């Protein structure tokens, strides 16, 4: 279980404090999934960093019960161009000092799962955007995380590839009982993947609404009326937040 309690965050530049997140509170149950959505620049990445422990709140608390292993996919994947696909995926295990043999098994299994067989010796620069995103997902999964933090892992993909990868993420999440926190600015993605959807306001980000979405991830959800109505509902909430009029 992940709990945020009136967390605040600001960045200071030019001597002044610029608030980025204000009084953020919510809960995410273990083995559930949560989507964070909001207009561009509202502080989604910052919020994910708080949850993943890459940043500390100025006030308020972020707690994760039971210190689970976590994996994180950064907004632009954070792959290392000087490492091959194989080395990128195995890096988390290498850093933990896992023995070579086991790393090899794990990486090869992930290459198959992610449809990357035959690309282990390629460098990220030689892959398409979609393949790079799958490498980033594989790298995060390699350490067998119990929580997966993802920052717009599917942005800049065409609609069909995007849906295919959404399905893949959903499949993996169910198979491995992973708690998932997904940042996105795409409404359909939030509705398909997030059992709970946290809607942030424009900058500084406040929680505008928390929408429950129990049908998330079910087969054919995208074609259902509930899906359609929930997307409309989110669009209504987000309307007027788009360009972050609040400063």
């Amino acid at each position, binding site marked *: 279980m992940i709990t945020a309690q009136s967390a605040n965050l600001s960045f200071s530049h030019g001597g002044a404090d610029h608030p980025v997140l204000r009084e953020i509170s919510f809960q995410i149950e273990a083995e559930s999934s949560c989507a964070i959505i909001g207009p561009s620049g509202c502080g989604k990445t910052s919020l994910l960093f708080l949850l*993943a422990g*890459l940043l500390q709140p100025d006030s308020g608390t972020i707690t994760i019960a039971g210190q689970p292993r*976590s*994996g*994180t996919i*950064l907004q*632009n994947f*954070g*792959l*290392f*161009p*000087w*490492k091959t696909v194989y080395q990128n995926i195995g*890096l*988390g295990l290498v*850093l*933990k000092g896992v023995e070579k043999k086991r790393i090899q098994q794990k990486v090869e299994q992930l290459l198959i799962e992610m449809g990357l067989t035959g690309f282990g010796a*390629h*460098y990220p*620069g*030689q892959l398409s955007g979609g393949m790079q995103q799958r490498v980033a997902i594989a*790298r*995060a999964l390699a*350490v067998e995380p119990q929580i997966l*933090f993802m920052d717009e892992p599917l942005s800049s993909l065409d609609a069909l590839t995007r849906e295919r990868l959404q399905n893949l993420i959903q499949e993996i999440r169910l198979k491995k009982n992973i708690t998932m926190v997904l940042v996105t600015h795409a409404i359909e993605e939030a509705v398909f993947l997030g059992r709970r959807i946290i809607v942030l306001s424009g900058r500084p980000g406040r929680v505008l609404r928390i929408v429950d979405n129990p049908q998330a991830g079910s087969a054919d959800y995208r074609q259902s009326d509930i899906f359609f109505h929930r997307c409309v509902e989110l669009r209504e909430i987000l309307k007027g937040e788009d360009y972050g009029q609040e400063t």
Partner: protein
Amino acid sequence: MGRKRDILLAALILLGIWEVSALLLNSMALPEPWMVLLDSAGKIANGSLLDDLAISCLRALLGIALALITAVPLGLMIGAEEGLRRRLSPFIYLLYPVPHVVLLPLIIILFGIGNFSKIFLIALIVFFQILVTTRDAAKNIHRNYFLAMQTLGASRLQIYRHVILPATLPKILTAMRISIGTAVAILFFVESFATTKGLGYIIMDSWGRADYVALYTGISCMAALGFGLYLLLDRVERKVCAWTQSD
């Protein structure tokens, strides 16, 4: 390979220009290339040139190596550790523009006129070139790579090994490319006095004796030495920076 053929062709054209100039000039001061080639081959075959070639090669290599093993770690640390950078950068700022060649008398007073002084001066000059490039490269590594390492739970040492060093390596090799030219130039300078061994000595000695063929043999060997180092570096680069030539 096309590149190899092009280089060979360029070499032949340069030799042709030399030959034509020698014929036109018809002067002792510019012997024809085949005479120089014959002289070099003869001296290498009877072993009289090998010593000089070997010692010059060794001086240049050791100088570069000494610079490399000191400048790279230091440059990486100054670039990557902010505190260190703040404290040490003013010193580099003051010391870098000094023409280090003028320290020769001091070096000879300190270390005598033996090989070490020669190697030390080459190392000193190359040191600053590599130091400054390495520092700047390490300073400009994108923040994302550090975040990605943080999400994988890397230690500081692991960050050096997996991010800071590989990210700066292409720049370091470029700096070395420039350093080779400098190193050979300084080699000539330090071999032009107080020694009876080395290609620099051969050049100065045959010049003094007005033995122009021997003079050009020395010059050609010096050029070949620089070219050889260049080729070596090419090979190293293809091995350790495979990712930069992957497109």
